[in-house]
């Protein structure tokens, strides 16, 4: 067992000697590392933005806010209580929760200063409404009619409407990231084709000798594909490691903002697993492209 392993190692070493050039000696691994770094970042952006849009949509789809707009605080409180009661009895509503005026004042404080908590300020009362699942728009329309029958000043706004443009932007950015990944893949393939052609040309003498000794095209192509595959593996691992480090730093920065919206831009386990597949896919792409390129070049000789 160990002697056959030693024999395989010796054969691999002999194959390695046929095409000289040390690991990380040429530009190829470094170019692949840069490509992989950018590809992983783009893919991570695409996945995280996609997840954020999905989470946002799921979160906002069945929710709405009811505003009780009334200048007189006492009337506003009474109206808010009646509205809350009506909403809780409505079949379209799963839950209705009044927003704490103190929390509301806290949210307004950055714009209004300490006056935000003043009773003189006619801040509307807010009620968070969670709808029963399905047909959000129709349910919102029915609730709008119900609220209109209670008081014309009551307004209902579905949350999805607020964030629709943002979701559109995130979706567009996600697709842009996917486009960058595709372009990076094409560019990586092109780099491998050029590297394989250059390697083929620079080892033409060795290839001629191997051919005349009876080497098959596949045997020769295998030498190049493993060499380029190893370069791609080294470059891919390097680029992936740097990209992961960068993503972790960005993740920490996003968490530090304390923003729910930015916090939603995150990678789950599946996202990380997909990213981890990128170096593997990169190596496979390099091996297959190198093999195809060298076989095509060899096919032109006798």
């Amino acid at each position, binding site marked *: 067992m160990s*002697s056959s392993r*030693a*024999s*395989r190692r*010796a*054969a691999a070493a*002999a194959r390695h*000697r*046929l095409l*000289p050039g040390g690991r990380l000696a040429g530009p190829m691994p470094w170019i692949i590392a840069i490509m992989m770094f950018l590809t992983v970042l783009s893919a991570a952006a695409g996945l995280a933005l996609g997840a954020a849009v999905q989470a946002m949509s799921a979160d906002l789809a069945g929710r709405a806010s009811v505003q009780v707009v009334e200048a007189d605080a006492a009337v506003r409180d009474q109206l808010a209580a009646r509205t809350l009661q009506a909403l809780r009895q409505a079949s379209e509503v799963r839950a209705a929760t009044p927003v704490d005026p103190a929390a509301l004042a806290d949210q307004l404080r950055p714009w209004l200063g300490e006056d935000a908590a003043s009773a003189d300020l006619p801040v509307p009362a807010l009620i968070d409404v969670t709808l029963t699942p399905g047909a959000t728009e129709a349910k919102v329309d029915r609730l709008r009619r119900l609220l209109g029958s209670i008081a014309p000043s009551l307004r209902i706004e579905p949350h999805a409407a607020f964030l629709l443009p943002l979701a559109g932007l995130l979706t567009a950015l996600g697709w842009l990231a996917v486009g960058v990944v595709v372009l990076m893949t094409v560019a990586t393939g092109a780099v491998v084709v050029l590297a394989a052609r250059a390697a083929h040309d620079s080892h033409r*003498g*060795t290839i*001629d*000798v*191997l*051919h*005349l*000794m*009876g*080497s*098959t*095209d596949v*045997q020769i192509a295998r030498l190049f594909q493993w060499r380029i595959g190893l370069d791609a593996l080294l470059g891919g691992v390097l680029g992936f490691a740097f990209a992961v480090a960068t993503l972790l730093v960005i993740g920490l920065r996003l968490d530090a903002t304390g923003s729910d919206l930015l916090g939603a831009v995150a990678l789950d386990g599946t996202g990380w697993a997909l990213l981890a597949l990128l170096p593997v896919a990169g190596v496979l792409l390099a091996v297959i492209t190198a093999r195809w390129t060298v076989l095509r070049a060899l*096919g032109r000789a*006798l």
Partner: protein
Amino acid sequence: MTRHQSDMTAIVQFENVGLRYGLDSETLSDVSFSLAAGGFYFLTGASGAGKTSLLKLLYLAQRPSRGVIRLFGEDVVTLPRTRLPGFRRRIGVVFQDFRLVPHLSAYDNIALPLRVAGMEEKEIDAPVAEMLSWVGLGDRGQARPATLSGGEQQRVAIARAVIGRPEILVADEPTGNVDADMARRLLTLFEALNRLGTTIVVATHDLPLMSQVTGAQMMRLDKGRLADPTGSLRYPARSRQAE
């Protein structure tokens, strides 16, 4: 010997072979001959007569512009290129310019045909060491070609050509860079291989060398045509094994 009998033992057959590079006039014209399995042949002729071109056709580095070439009984002119490696493995070649792989040691250069043939690494060491020793380079196995003299490089090239026990050995001026003693030793190696059944084809200008091999036949090329006044090479000579 009848033509039919001769064809039965022919390992190489050329029929009206012509070779033209690009739009130039033919380098080889109407070359026809047969070589018997186990024969020993010298190919001679002035510089530019077409010796190297003929050898290239023989070791399948080139396809002819016209005519038929049969090796081991098969037409190799129309053979798909995917089948050429199998034929090439049966032919050992000593190139005029040695064509050693410069970044490989003498040992690895000699081991190359065995590795190409897929031999296990553990089985390679003994024959390579034996061959190195035989060509007098037992202590230079790890030397790169650039550190070897012309004669030493030539010996490595010869060792590489014969290590796979080819059925045909083609050598282009194999003694051009070695002294008389080494030339004699190389010829002895060729004769030993020939006795084991290998058909030997040596291109050379060295008349004294040719005279040392009894039973060998000579082909002479003159301006791309086979000058064969006796006609003996149109039919294979008897195998030396059969002698």
